[in-house]
């Protein structure tokens, strides 16, 4: 037998490593509620063999895949099942996105327009007749509420209120705020600035920031996603060259830029991958290395339930956010069973997916109600919308909880800022 031949037998996305054990099928949230979906094993490694022979074996039912990656997390053999599925959608699907998909996917454009007239948009989108039109004409489910648009973008707030002070710090990071912080929830960005400044770090925006493109990929707009991805990676690279790590507060943006860019869009990211990280991971590591200290308020009390967002689980970073939260003396943290909440970004907004989306999340919603915490905490903004809408419990990013619990003056003193 020729030496080393096994080492050369490396297949795309580890396709050949699939043992057909079918473990992944037990953890697919879509299969559980939608039998028309052929499941991860069949959609991924099984059918890929046929597709490689003849693209007519491509099945449009694959668009039902949430890309949650729970099949990959479950796989004992390291097969990138969801990557196989998403890559085949990009390669073979002939169905273009409809207007609704383009709108949902273009979070940047829609957000910019909506911010200008936020109060009108927020009220209008909440009106029953408008919801009926969105549902009937656009195919956006009437049960959904759009996350409210902020009247001031995070970037605008930052430039006016925070930017001038940032150069005064000794150490520096950049911040990829993402669409959600910029258009809908600037408070999360303000919370991060508060923590980083207290710890002695100046925070800076990237030279250019575009939407990470996760919704574009999901809606079949991979070319646009690639263009935006190139812009982001260039900006991140420039920041890295200045020695500034780029922080994020969204698990999905992070995952998309670190892993999906390379795996699905063919963007070269290996040189900057370690310069792009979730803020909780960055903070945890600084604290562990003894480089910074955080002090927390003595009167802070909270009982929070942690929800493991799918992409957080896939990155393996749940431990950073939870270990960081556990450092807050007044916080009791309950771990929820790790399961998908069902929203998967724009997926749950589409009327054809709404019912499925709610069924997928039902186990999680029941558990949250049983635990009855003060609030739920998760690193993903779309999980936040879904859980808030479906359970009524408030959902906070771990960064916001840290900021709330932080004793700012003591932290400044401890870090000699």
């Amino acid at each position, binding site marked *: 037998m020729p030496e080393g031949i096994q080492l050369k037998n490396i297949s795309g996305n580890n396709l050949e490593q699939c043992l057909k054990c079918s473990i992944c099928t037990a953890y697919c949230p879509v299969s559980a509620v939608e039998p028309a979906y052929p499941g991860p094993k069949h959609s991924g490694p099984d059918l890929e063999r046929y597709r490689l022979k003849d693209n007519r074996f491509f099945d449009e039912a694959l668009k039902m895949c949430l890309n949650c990656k729970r099949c990959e997390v479950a796989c004992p053999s390291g097969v990138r099942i969801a990557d196989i599925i998403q890559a085949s959608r990009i390669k073979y699907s002939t169905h273009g996105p409809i207007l609704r998909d383009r709108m949902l996917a273009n979070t940047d454009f829609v957000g910019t327009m909506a911010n200008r007239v936020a109060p009108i948009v927020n009220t209008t989108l909440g009106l029953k007749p408008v919801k009926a039109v969105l549902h009937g004409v656009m195919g956006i489910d009437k049960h959904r509420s759009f996350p409210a648009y902020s009247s001031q973008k995070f970037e605008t707030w930052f430039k006016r209120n925070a930017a001038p002070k940032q150069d005064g710090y000794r150490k520096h990071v950049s911040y990829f705020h993402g669409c959600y912080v910029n258009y809908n929830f600037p408070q999360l960005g303000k919370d991060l600035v508060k923590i980083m400044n207290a710890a002695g770090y100046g925070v800076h925006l990237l030279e250019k920031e575009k939407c990470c493109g996760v919704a574009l990929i999901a809606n079949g707009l991979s070319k646009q996603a690639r263009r935006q991805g190139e812009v982001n990676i260039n900006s991140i690279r420039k920041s890295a060259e200045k020695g500034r790590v780029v922080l994020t507060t969204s698990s999905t943006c992070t995952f998309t830029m670190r892993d999906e860019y390379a795996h699905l869009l063919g963007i070269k990211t290996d040189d900057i991958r370690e310069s792009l990280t979730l803020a909780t991971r960055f903070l945890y*590591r600084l604290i562990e290395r003894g480089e910074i200290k955080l002090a927390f308020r003595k009167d802070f009390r909270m009982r929070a339930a942690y929800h493991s967002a799918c992409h957080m689980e896939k990155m393996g970073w749940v431990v950073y956010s939870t270990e960081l939260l556990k450092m807050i003396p007044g916080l009791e943290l309950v771990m929820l069973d790790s399961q998908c909440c069902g929203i998967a970004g724009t997926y749950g907004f589409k009327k054809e997916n709404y019912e499925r989306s709610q069924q997928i999340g039902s186990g999680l919603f029941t558990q949250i109600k049983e635990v009855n915490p003060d609030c739920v905490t998760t690193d993903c903004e779309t999980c936040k919308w879904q859980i808030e809408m479906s359970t009524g419990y408030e959902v906070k990013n771990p960064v916001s909880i840290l900021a709330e619990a932080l004793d700012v003056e003591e932290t400044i003193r401890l870090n000699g800022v």
Partner: protein
Amino acid sequence: MKYDIIIIGGGLSGLTAGITLAQAGRRVCIVSAGQSSLHFHSGSFDLLGYDVEGKPVTRPLEAIGQLGAEHPYAKIGFERIARLADEAETLLNEAGVKVKGDSKKNHYRFSPLGRRIPAWLTTEGYAVCEEADTLSWKRVEILNVQGFLDFPTEFISAGLKKQGVVCQVKSFTTDELRHARKSPTEMRATNIAKVLADRENLRKVADCINAVSGEADVLLLPAVLGFSDEKSLDELKTMVEKPIAYLPTLPPSVSGVRTAILLKRLFARLGGTLLVGDKANGGVFKDGRLVSVTTDHLPDESLYADQFILASGSFMSHGLESNYQRVFEPVFDLDVDTAGKRAEWTKEDAFDAQPYMEYGVRTDRDFHAIKDGQTVGNLFAVGSVLSGHNPVRLLDGTGVSLLTALQVARTITERR
């Protein structure tokens, strides 16, 4: 990151050790690369099913004495097995895995093909019999869900008929189960279990069963109930008029998924940290001790601990790997008991005892792993990564996983 104990592997042995150590107040982290072989679980646990000659064992605690000195049970010490077996049973029940059995005397369970196989503990509600060839039923009906292919009713029925049991095979369906058949490939035990987790759907199944079942001492049903707890197994019993018993199906196993979920939940409740979908890929050794390990997802993080346990499983779970040259342990390249020549790894007849089944990590009598001939003082190996036993021939796999994990957990807690 620093823990008291780091366990590599989140299957039956890793979770058992993790739970026991967390109960003792230790900070435990489990690194788990994908789901475990529990997903092929029969619904039963075995201590020792067959002796070295292949004969069924009736009294496992007595028969264990005949095993060779290198068998993990011999390393534990035969006199300790009974006590550890009781502890294992308590731990399973505490997690919500309700099992029945007796380590002093094996009972018999059914394989998915209907064979009778010796077992130590079996999930409550599953079909069992006291002896291999004595069935308490004269007349049975095997009821299957229409279109569910992982439950070969003809094999099961042929086996029962051979023993003089009057046996009829019937099938049933409901609107919800018919809907679940839309993709025939996805009509699996675990997906059916998710449909029947809904009480209303289960009620309709009970109505169907009550309508189709005829005269029978027992109705045998595929074990397709109870994805994340055992509620629906009991509920169906109260809804169906005739007595019912469950038979295991082909994988993925519902009882296995449930066992994994329940053990993980208990571990989390005890404050344990579980890194899922992450693979330990190496470690730093110093002065005969393991200092830290690294993982794929935390590339520049070192996970430090006082004690480490390798519970990474056998070949299927990649706890052991092979190439054309050798069999090896991929995380630390620990010393492995194996035959040198590749031709000696297997026997041509598939039904012979396969030598590779006994390959595994070499340890001392306390299950300390050995690297380059030197004992590593704070690294233990437990479960199916261990050498010296053949779970297929001896039916000792789950017993070795549970008992070696408990034994090592005890060694660690007593050490301080």
